[in-house]
C-alpha cells in the first residue's frame, strides 16, 4: 500500500503509452501487496517449522523477552495510563451530563478495555517500539553482511534471528496486555475518584465481563503478538541499499505492523460479534 517503495519504471523496449502507464500504476501496488503477503505467510510457516524442528535457544529467547517486555513496561504504562484517564474523563463527563448516573462507568469501561482498547493500543505501542527496533537491528545486520555470514555458517536467518523474537513477542504481548488492563483501569479509577468523586469500590465492577471478553482479549493479544514480529523481521531481512534502506525498512515495519493490528482487530472483532450473536444468551 503506501508502504510500497518507489519502484522505478521498468524499461519496456516500446514507447510508453498513457494506458500502459495507467495499468502499471494500478498493477504495481497490487503486485507488491500480493508478493509481500506471500512472503509473510512463507516466513510464518518457516518460523513454525523451525520452532518445531530446531533446538530452543533459551539465551536468545530470554534476551528478547527482556528487550520486548521489560524495556517496554514504562512506555506501555505511560501511554495506556493516559488512555485510561482520557476515556474515563470523556465517558464520565457524558454520563454526568445525560443521566447523572456514574454507577455503570467502571463496569462498562472494563468491558470495553478488555474487548478493544487494551489489546489494540498495547499492540500499536509494541509495533512502534519493538517493530522499529527489530527492523533496524536486523536491517543493519543485513547491510553489514552479518546475515550472509550467518548463512555461511549454516545458521538459517529465520531460525537464528526470527524464532527467538517471535516466541518472545508472542509471550510478552499477552503479558503486557494484562499489565495494560491493570494500569489503564487503575488510572481510570483514580480519574473517576478525583474528577467525579466516584468511589473506587463502586468503580471496580466485574459484573459486566465474562469468559467471552477474556477470550476475545487474549486471542487478540495472541494474534497481534504473532503478526508484529513476523512483519518486523520481514522488513528487516529485506533491506537493500545501505543506511537509507535501513530507514525505509523501519518505516515499513511500523506502518505494516500497525496496519496489520488494525486489520486483525477488525477481523477478530467481527468474528467475535458473529460468535456472540450465535451463542444462546
Amino acid at each position: 500500500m503506501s508502504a510500497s517503495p518507489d519502484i522505478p519504471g521498468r524499461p519496456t523496449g516500446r514507447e510508453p503509452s498513457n494506458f500502459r502507464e495507467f495499468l502499471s500504476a494500478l498493477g504495481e501496488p497490487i503486485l507488491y501487496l500480493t508478493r509481500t503477503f506471500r512472503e509473510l505467510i512463507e516466513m510464518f510457516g518457516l518460523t513454525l517449522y523451525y520452532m518445531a524442528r530446531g533446538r530452543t535457544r533459551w539465551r536468545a529467547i530470554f534476551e528478547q523477552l527482556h528487550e520486548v517486555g521489560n524495556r517496554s513496561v514504562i512506555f506501555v504504562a505511560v501511554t495506556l495510563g493516559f488512555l485510561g484517564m482520557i476515556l474515563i474523563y470523556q465517558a464520565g463527563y457524558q454520563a454526568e451530563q445525560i443521566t447523572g448516573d456514574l454507577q455503570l462507568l467502571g463496569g462498562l469501561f472494563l468491558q470495553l478495555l478488555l474487548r478493544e482498547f487494551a489489546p489494540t493500543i498495547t499492540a500499536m505501542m509494541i509495533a512502534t517500539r519493538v517493530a522499529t527496533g527489530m527492523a533496524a537491528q536486523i536491517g543493519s545486520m543485513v547491510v553489514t553482511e552479518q546475515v550472509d555470514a550467518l548463512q555461511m555458517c549454516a545458521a538459517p536467518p529465520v531460525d537464528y534471528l526470527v524464532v527467538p523474537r517471535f516466541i518472545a513477542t508472542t509471550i510478552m504481548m499477552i503479558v503486557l496486555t494484562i499489565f495494560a488492563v491493570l494500569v489503564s483501569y487503575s488510572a481510570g479509577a483514580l480519574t473517576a475518584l478525583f474528577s467525579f468523586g466516584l468511589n473506587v469500590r463502586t468503580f471496580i465492577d466485574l459484573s459486566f465481563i465474562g469468559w467471552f471478553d477474556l477470550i476475545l482479549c487474549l486471542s487478540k493479544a495472541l494474534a497481534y503478538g504473532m503478526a508484529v514480529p513476523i512483519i518486523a523481521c520481514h522488513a528487516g531481512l529485506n533491506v537493500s541499499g545501505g543506511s537509507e534502506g535501513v530507514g525505509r525498512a523501519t518505516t515499513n515495519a511500523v506502518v505494516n505492523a500497525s496496519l496489520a493490528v488494525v486489520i486483525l482487530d477488525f477481523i477478530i472483532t467481527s468474528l467475535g460479534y458473529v460468535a456472540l450473536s450465535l451463542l444462546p444468551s
Partner: protein
Amino acid sequence: MHRLATTLQAPFHWLGQTAMSWSFNAGGLALLTFQVLRNLLPWRWQFDGPETWRNLYRVGVKSFPIVVVTAVLVGAIMVIQSGLYIEQYGAYGLLGWGAGYSILREVGPILIGLMFSGRVGANNTAELGTMKVTDQVDALRALAIDPIGYLVMPRFIAMILMMFLLVVIGNFTALIGGAITSQVLLDVNMVLFFQSVIAYVLLDDLLHGLIKAVAFGFAIAIISCHFGLSTSGGAVGVGRAVNASVVGSAIAIFVLDYAITFASL
C-alpha cells in the same frame, strides 16, 4: 575488587546516562520549537517554497491510502463495539451518536495520529538521519543554507497542514465505514445511522478532534525533525533515531490528548 566496583557503579552510570540523554532531548526539542516559531514570525518569514510543495505532496498524498484504510476499519470496529451495547438496550437511534462521538473526539485523531507518526514521522527521521550521518546537513551549512529554513520548516508546515486535512478525511471515511458496517453486520439502516450522526454529533465534537489533530501534527513534526537531526552512528544510529522518534511521538500524542481533553471539558 575492580569488578565489584564496576558492578556497583553500573546503576549510577545508567542513571547519569539516562538523565543526560533526557536533558539533551528536552533541550533540543525546546530549541527546535523556538527556532521554528521564530521562523514563522512575519518579519523573519523564511522557508523554501518548492521544498514545501514537495513535502506537502509527499506527506499528504502518500499517506492518503493508509489513512483511508485505517479510518474505514476504525469506523467499522467502533460501530461493532457500540452495537453490542445498543442491541442490549434496543436504542438503535443512538448508534450513530455512539460511533460518531467516539470517532470524532478520541479514536479517530489518536489512531490516525499514530499511523501518521509511523508513516510520516518515522520516514522523516530516517531521511534526516541519513542526511546527517552522510554529512549532508553539514554540507548545507557550508553552503550557507540554513537547515531550519530548508529542511525543518517545509516539513513542519506540511505535517501540520496535512495532519489536519487527513483527520478531516479520516473522520468522513470512518463514518462511511461505520455506516456500511451498521447496514451489513448489524442490520441497522444506513439512513438511520446518518440521521443519528447529524442529530446528536455536534460541531464541538468535530472541532475538538481537529484541535487535537493540529497539536499532534505539531508534536510529530518537532519530535521527528529533532531526532533526525541529532542522529549519530551510521546505519545503526538511524534505526535507533527512528525508534526514539516514534516512541516519543506516541507518548506526546497520549499526553497532549489528555491535556486537550482536560482543558476543553
